[in-house]
């Protein structure tokens, strides 16, 4: 009896120790060897980014010209005044609070206007010159003049001169300055449009949606392609001096825009490129017409031949110059009201523009085909330049009444317009990068199978740091740096998101894993479990036997 009891104890101990070895050594070993490598990600910082609040601030310098400030008002300078104005854009995961004004009142009260015009103000800042009411600088009915640089002239109204101190004067002028700021830097609608892809906005009017959809999304570079479509090379031999035209018309604008993005320009000639729609013959005017509602189908067959850029993956802006063939000439585009479009051109949002260039005035009665035709590039490039401005998002919003905007100079773009673009681009970049990073973090969190390599972790953290830097630079009003950092953030976040190594082990479903493990696990675990059960039941039985003995 005693020997069998000892033997039984020994068996139980053996079973228990085997179970212990399996649990202490086997399970962790299996766990460690089948684990996927996951580098550390700054998850908490990413979560912070998800509920980011954007503060935008712009420096506004108000300069009073001689005769606008009374001596007693003059005493209280210098002074800096910060004005906060909050717009709220509420979205699912994105809050943006905009504080667009820090009013710094400069000491140079009696400044020389011309001197200040020369001094270069940093991008993002504004200088507002306040001129006396009687000044003849501005025409009679104009209160505010917006120059080509980052300057504006503001005529001081008589009702504004009531204040005793400078603060009061400034408080009177504030709504005007805000208006100037909205025109020259950013307004609520701009920022909302920039965030439109990230934030669900209550549907506004159709026009503003169309406006926000038109411009290309922010990207570190753009490819601009001019294509000359010659559907009828048998009758037209076309010559276009695209090289010279690009140099004169397009290049200055792009040089100006170089802080925003890199541009590369190409041009090509496509023969036998037909439009997708047969133009209708208008017998009353003996012309051919394209209706506005059929324009959507025009570019489809052409697009197959345009070709994408083999050398980069930046978005392509297409500008097509279509010369109608001799049998469908002249060709005019009609808008929805059946009116002839004066430029004979149209553009497609986020795609490019098409211009129809009629050459039938070159035909004579006894013309021998082919005809040599020199295309008037000034006419063409004027249209393309306007389209390019629209597609790049250089908005020419209508100024409030009483405003006079200086015509843009040679570059086709005023400094403040560039600033405006940079503001909205920075905000858009930050929003895009944040969404990319948060969704990547979410994805990695949800699917445990994905291997996270060190380089991905590095990209993610560099994206996060650039994002934080961009946000703080925006807050400080350093527009140039903010844009730079936001671009870096976009680049590294996209690189992390589209890294092919994330896909390697994605398809390794659990049921297949278990099919492989079962032949090993089942025969090993069943005896262990059974003997453990037996030990437990015996122990319970013994326990029960002891109880009645006590009783």
């Amino acid at each position, binding site marked *: 009896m005693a020997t069998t009891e000892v033997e039984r104890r020994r068996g139980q101990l053996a079973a228990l120790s085997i179970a212990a070895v399996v649990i202490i050594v086997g399970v962790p070993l299996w766990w460690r060897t089948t684990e996927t490598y996951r580098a550390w990600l700054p998850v908490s910082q990413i979560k912070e980014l998800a509920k980011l609040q954007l503060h935008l601030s712009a420096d506004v310098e108000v300069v009073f010209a001689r005769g606008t400030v009374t001596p007693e008002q003059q005493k209280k300078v210098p002074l800096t005044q910060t004005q906060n104005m909050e717009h709220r854009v509420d979205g699912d995961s994105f809050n943006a609070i905009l504080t667009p004004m820090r009013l710094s009142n400069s000491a140079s009260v009696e400044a020389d206007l011309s001197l200040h015009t020369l001094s270069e103000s940093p991008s993002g800042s504004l200088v507002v010159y306040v001129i006396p009411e009687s000044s003849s600088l501005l025409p009679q009915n104009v209160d505010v003049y917006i120059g080509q640089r980052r300057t504006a002239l503001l005529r001081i109204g008589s009702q504004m001169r009531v204040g005793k101190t400078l603060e009061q004067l400034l408080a009177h002028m504030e709504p005007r300055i805000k208006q100037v700021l909205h025109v020259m830097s950013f307004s609520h609608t701009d920022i909302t449009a920039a965030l439109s892809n990230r934030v669900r906005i209550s549907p506004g009017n159709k026009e503003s949606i169309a406006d926000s959809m038109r411009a290309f999304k922010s990207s570190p570079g753009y490819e601009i392609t001019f294509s000359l479509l010659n559907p009828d090379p048998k009758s037209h031999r076309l010559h276009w001096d695209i090289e010279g035209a690009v140099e004169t018309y397009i290049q200055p604008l792009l040089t100006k825009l170089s802080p925003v993005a890199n541009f590369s320009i190409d041009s090509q000639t496509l023969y036998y490129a037909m439009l997708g729609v047969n133009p209708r013959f208008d017998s009353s005017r003996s012309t051919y017409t394209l209706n506005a509602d059929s324009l959507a189908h025009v570019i489809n067959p052409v697009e197959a031949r345009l070709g994408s850029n*083999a050398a980069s993956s930046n978005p392509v802006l297409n500008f097509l110059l279509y010369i109608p063939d001799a049998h469908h000439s002249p060709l005019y585009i009609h808008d929805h009201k059946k009116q002839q479009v004066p430029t004979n051109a149209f553009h497609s949002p986020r795609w490019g523009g098409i211009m129809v260039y009629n050459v039938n005035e070159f035909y004579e009665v006894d013309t021998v085909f082919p005809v040599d035709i*020199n295309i008037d590039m000034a006419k063409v490039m004027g249209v393309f330049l306007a389209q390019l401005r629209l597609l790049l998002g250089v908005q020419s919003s209508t100024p409030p009444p009483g405003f006079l905007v200086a015509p843009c100079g040679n570059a086709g773009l005023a400094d403040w317009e560039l600033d405006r673009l940079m503001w909205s681009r920075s905000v858009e970049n930050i929003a895009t990068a944040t969404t990319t990073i948060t969704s990547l973090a979410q994805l990695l969190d949800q699917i445990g199978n994905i291997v996270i390599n060190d380089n991905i972790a590095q990209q993610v953290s560099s994206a996060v740091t650039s994002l934080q830097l961009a946000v703080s630079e925006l807050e400080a009003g350093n527009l140039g740096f903010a844009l730079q950092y936001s671009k870096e953030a976009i680049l590294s976040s996209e690189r992390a998101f589209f890294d092919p190594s994330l896909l390697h082990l994605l398809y390794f479903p659990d049921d297949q894993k278990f099919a492989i493990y079962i032949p090993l696990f089942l025969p090993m675990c069943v005896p262990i479990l059974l003997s453990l059960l037996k030990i437990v039941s015996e122990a319970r039985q013994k326990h029960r036997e002891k109880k009645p003995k006590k009783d």
Partner: protein
Amino acid sequence: MAAHRCSFSAVLFALWGLSLLTVARGQEATLEGNDRTAVVDNPESVAGAAEQAAGQPAAEDRRWEATAVEEVSPTEAGGGSDSPAPKPAASPPSVPRPKDDFQEELVIRPLHSGDIYTSFQFRTLWETDFTRENKVSHYRLFPKSLGQVISKFSVRELHISFTQGYWRTMQWGQPYLPSPPGAELWVWFQDSLTDVDGTWKELTNVLSGIFCASLNFIDSTNTVQPSASFKPLGIGNVTDHRFLRYATLPREIVCTENLTPWKKLLPCGSKAGLAVLLKSEKLFHSSFHSQAVHIRPVCKDDQCKTTSWELRQTLNVVFDLHNSGQGKNEWSLFKMFSRTLTEACPVASSSKIYIDITDNSQGEQFELSPATPLLSQAVVLGDRRTFSVYDLTQQITFGTMRSLNLLIRGKSSQGDMLRPLLHAERYVAGYGLQTGEIHTLMYNNHPYRSFPVLLLDSVPWYLRLYIHTLTVTSKGKDNKPSYIHYQPSKDRVRPHLLEMLVQLPPNSVTEVTLQFERALLKWTEYTPDPNHGFYVGSSVISSLVPSIVAMDTNNSRERPLFSSFFPSKEESSYFVRVYTEPLLVNLPTPDFSMPYNVICLTCTVVAVGYGSLYNLLTRSFQIEEPSPGLAKRIANIIRKMRGVPPL
């Protein structure tokens, strides 16, 4: 060369003449005459046809300049009685002379086997500099996608071919442009490039997108850097093979999806010109189909001060007599391509069809309709050939029907083909799945001349070559190669590269044998159909072959005696590249359910061993009464039934 200079000066003359257009109409006419004679004067020599083609753009240029002068300086011309000499330079043309030029050409050669060989060539020349930094590029005739590839990847020369089928040299003779089955890509990069391998990888990926082909499967395991076989075909004297990459994909299957992007590169697409004939359902219903793109820098003029880029798109098809001829030996454009020609491509400066009528000088082999008076002679692949020429830029070619449907009606299939002087074949010998032997046979059919050939073999790493077993024998004797370049493979990194220079004795077969061992691959490295076998790319044999024209010393043709003593230099030998068949080698292939079987088996063995060990350790053993035997139990049952107490 002289002719070229002649036409150049003719252009200058024409310019000068046109500036005097309004002054002296008569004078202009005489100059026109001069020009024409200059073109006609072209000697019909080696590149007679090419020279004619070169004469064509000169005429075109002149016409363009004319409109410019008339447009720009009507006042000048009105008061143009002052000194005429500086005038051509003084009046800048508002329409610039186009810097690019496009030519198209189709050669049809009836083969002795009764098949028909058609070869399309489209050539775009562009005077530009892709290597300039940060440049705005404006494309007119040159395709934009290829231009961007050249400038982005610093390509100096690019040759890519896609071939379906194998060129049967013994039946068909030499092709105009040889290509191996599958895809072949070789690229010379600019010597300013630092990271050649990275650029090569990117380039293959981009080209794979452009041509819809699996070129992205080109990686370091099938890329080699031949030291001698592939020299640049364009200008430039950098021959450091560090900037050369060569790869083949013998498995690549070529079909419509490769033809469509290829056609898109043409300026006229498939809308006009010779390209309307390129209809894929006919082109791929053939014995051999090969399309290629060659880009190289060439000289602009004979001084070679400026370079132009040449893009040559070629397409070679051999139509099968029995497939589409229905037994009748009758061919027409419509029968072959199901289209006829109605016009030349309007932007092409030359558009011609050549038909090889060398063996048909008296019309004994076939009959050609419509007949053409234009004939052209050229030395092609060392043989003097005669061609009938149809110029599509002339309206008269199309006749009253306004469409050209060439008809070749074969009369007899007699006549013997001249045997190609060089051809080669290759096979794998041996049995079993462990070792094998590659045999390459090179035939020199020249009766009395020996010539050297360069043999290039690129063998994947999973065939481990035993280079010490390399033997080269011809006519039963050992033939020691004068140059051997061998680069051993590295597993999963790079293939074997073997290049050697072998002298082929006249009228002989030279056999190169090399033993190899088949490697075992990892289970993920097998293709989806591993039992089909693994392809090994064609060997490439490059050689300067003595010309047949030079061989022709038996005075059978009537030639002046003074011209036939020394073989003239240009014609004495010509360059030939011959590709052998690709090999299909079986590798030891595992059963692919093996991993799971192994797991199950191992687990079962482990479980059985573990189970018995576990039982031994945990069971408690006690002596038990042995149970009564079967007989005793039966006896007991019987006793129980009888009511007797059991035993």
